[in-house]
């Protein structure tokens, strides 16, 4: 019975924590300037997208070099639903999740049969190929893309309430909801199952786990979350177009996931903040040393890539997991 009590209080703590987090974010959004609010919204979008990759790669062990494609599907689904079917904005976010998840399930069914480099290459080919499909179908708006207007903040919030703050609220709410739900799932038997498959698929199968189904579920779920990130991104930029989802977006997300530590949700903020902060840091560095335009414009790419390599070499499981391992090693050592 004590065990039950512990778990229960645990889950309640978690819920309260997320509510508290929401309040902190709310207070922050009122204190900082508009640019920071916008960047906060960007971070929120990245957090959602990166956590979907963590679920897929870190937990179920399937790599995706093309998550940008799934983000794109979410963005387009939201825009098309809004423009062609006049679906209210709040509902388009759910549609984005559903459509991407559906596509993810299809992709996952193929992916479950592929491993390591094969899956990596297939998803890469998808990310390169998918956006150009928009040119083929007029409903997707071709190269110019579609407008996605998430609307103005309600008048009741006052004159000073900016669109960015409104978008930040929506994105932050989506992020908190996703993180809370995902945490719960990853701590449940589903998360355990994925980690078991990643660790030893034969043993997992012998323990009664249907591997294929589990992997497809992970892919669909991850795609759904990526789709939500896509809808939020579309809201943030106001449009969806093929060039908004370049292959570099997929690489950025993967980088964010690696920097966050692929195997844990704990560091997801780190990854997202780094992605948003890097261009600024690069600007600062370039200005400091009076670099030319070619240095300034290529420094972010260099920094991100170098960080990626260093992380893989030095802290392959990410900074948070690394700290935890060190601490638990110390703990084990002291027990003996």
């Amino acid at each position, binding site marked *: 019975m004590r065990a039950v009590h512990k778990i229960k209080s645990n889950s309640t703590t978690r819920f309260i924590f997320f509510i508290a987090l929401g309040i902190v974010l709310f207070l922050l959004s009122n204190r900082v300037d508009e640019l920071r609010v916008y960047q906060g919204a960007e971070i929120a979008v990245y957090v959602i997208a990166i956590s979907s990759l963590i679920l897929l790669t870190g937990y179920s062990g399937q790599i995706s070099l093309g998550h940008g494609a799934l983000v794109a599907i979410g963005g387009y689904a939201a825009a098309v639903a809004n423009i062609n079917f006049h679906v209210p904005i709040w509902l388009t976010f759910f549609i984005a999740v559903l459509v991407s998840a559906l596509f993810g399930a299809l992709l996952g069914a193929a992916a479950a049969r592929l491993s390591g480099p094969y899956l990596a290459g297939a998803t890469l080919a998808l990310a390169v190929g998918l956006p150009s499909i928009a040119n083929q179908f007029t409903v997707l708006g071709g190269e110019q893309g579609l407008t996605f207007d998430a609307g103005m903040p309600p008048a009741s919030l006052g004159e000073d309430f900016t669109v960015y703050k409104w978008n930040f609220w929506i994105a932050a709410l989506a992020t908190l909801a996703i993180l809370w739900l995902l945490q719960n799932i990853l701590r449940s038997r589903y998360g355990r199952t994925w980690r078991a498959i990643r660790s030893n698929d034969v043993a*997992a*199968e012998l323990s009664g786990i249907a591997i294929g189904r589990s992997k497809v579920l992970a892919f669909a779920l991850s795609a759904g979350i990526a789709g939500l990130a896509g809808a939020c991104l579309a809201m943030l930029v106001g449009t969806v177009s093929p060039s908004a989802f370049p292959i570099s977006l997929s690489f950025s997300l993967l980088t964010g996931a690696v920097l966050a530590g692929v195997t844990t949700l704990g560091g997801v903020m780190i990854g997202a903040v780094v992605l948003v902060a890097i261009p600024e840091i690069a600007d600062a560095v370039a200005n400091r040393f009076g670099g030319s335009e070619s240095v300034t414009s290529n420094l972010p790419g260099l920094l991100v890539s170098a960080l990626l390599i260093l992380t893989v070499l030095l802290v392959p499981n990410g900074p948070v997991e690394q700290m935890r391992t060190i601490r638990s090693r110390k703990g084990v050592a002291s027990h003996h």
Partner: protein
Amino acid sequence: MSTNQSLLAVKGLSISFGGLRALNDVHLEIKQGEVVGLIGPNGAGKTTAFNALCGLVTPDAGEFFLDGTSHAWPQTDTLVKLGIARTLQGVGLFSDLTVLENVMIGAQRFSSTGLISAALGRNTKDEAQLKERAIAALEKVYATGIAHRRADTLSYPDTKRVSIARALVCEPKILMLDEPAGGLGAQDIEWMNSLIRNLTATMSVLIVEHHMDVVMSVCDRLYVLNFGEVISSGSAETVRRDPAVIAAYLGTGA
């Protein structure tokens, strides 16, 4: 409980790998509460037979009987539902999960939480129940003390305990043990013997084992495989005296 009731039977099991015949027309039978041993030289087909029973290898031919009735050849992931659990030789733990989590994976057939309830955190009872089952299973193998260690930090004998706990936790009718005594010291082997003996109250056990001490002391019945065929079967005494077995396996010489 009648001891004559055949719990699991395999008839006419044949498997070949690229022209090489690994198993040829093998018949196996396990009765209620029995400990059955599968022995034979390395490469005789014991592991292949085990893998076939678990659906890890698809047989070329063979019939599968459960409780005396014919049954489609099982898929690996449905085995647990049929009441069959198996340990793997040495390497079967999920290395980056804790011991408790490892065993909870085995208990998952008792979990009914759907994805949505899990996402909403409405799985506390279910989780607690799994945890209780897992701890109970760990108690059976005296491993509760290591419940929160990561599996890859365990000593070899401890990994064996955990893998048995993981198999036990799903309350199987048939437990398949792949070299349970392999790599164990004398004390641990003794403990393993008594554990296996105690298990027969609730389940039947099928073991592959090299260690003759273990085999001879725990098994009610033995099948001796050589070159993919059953060359002898019966009680330990019978098998031990079988000249064919002496020549092929036990031997007095090479």
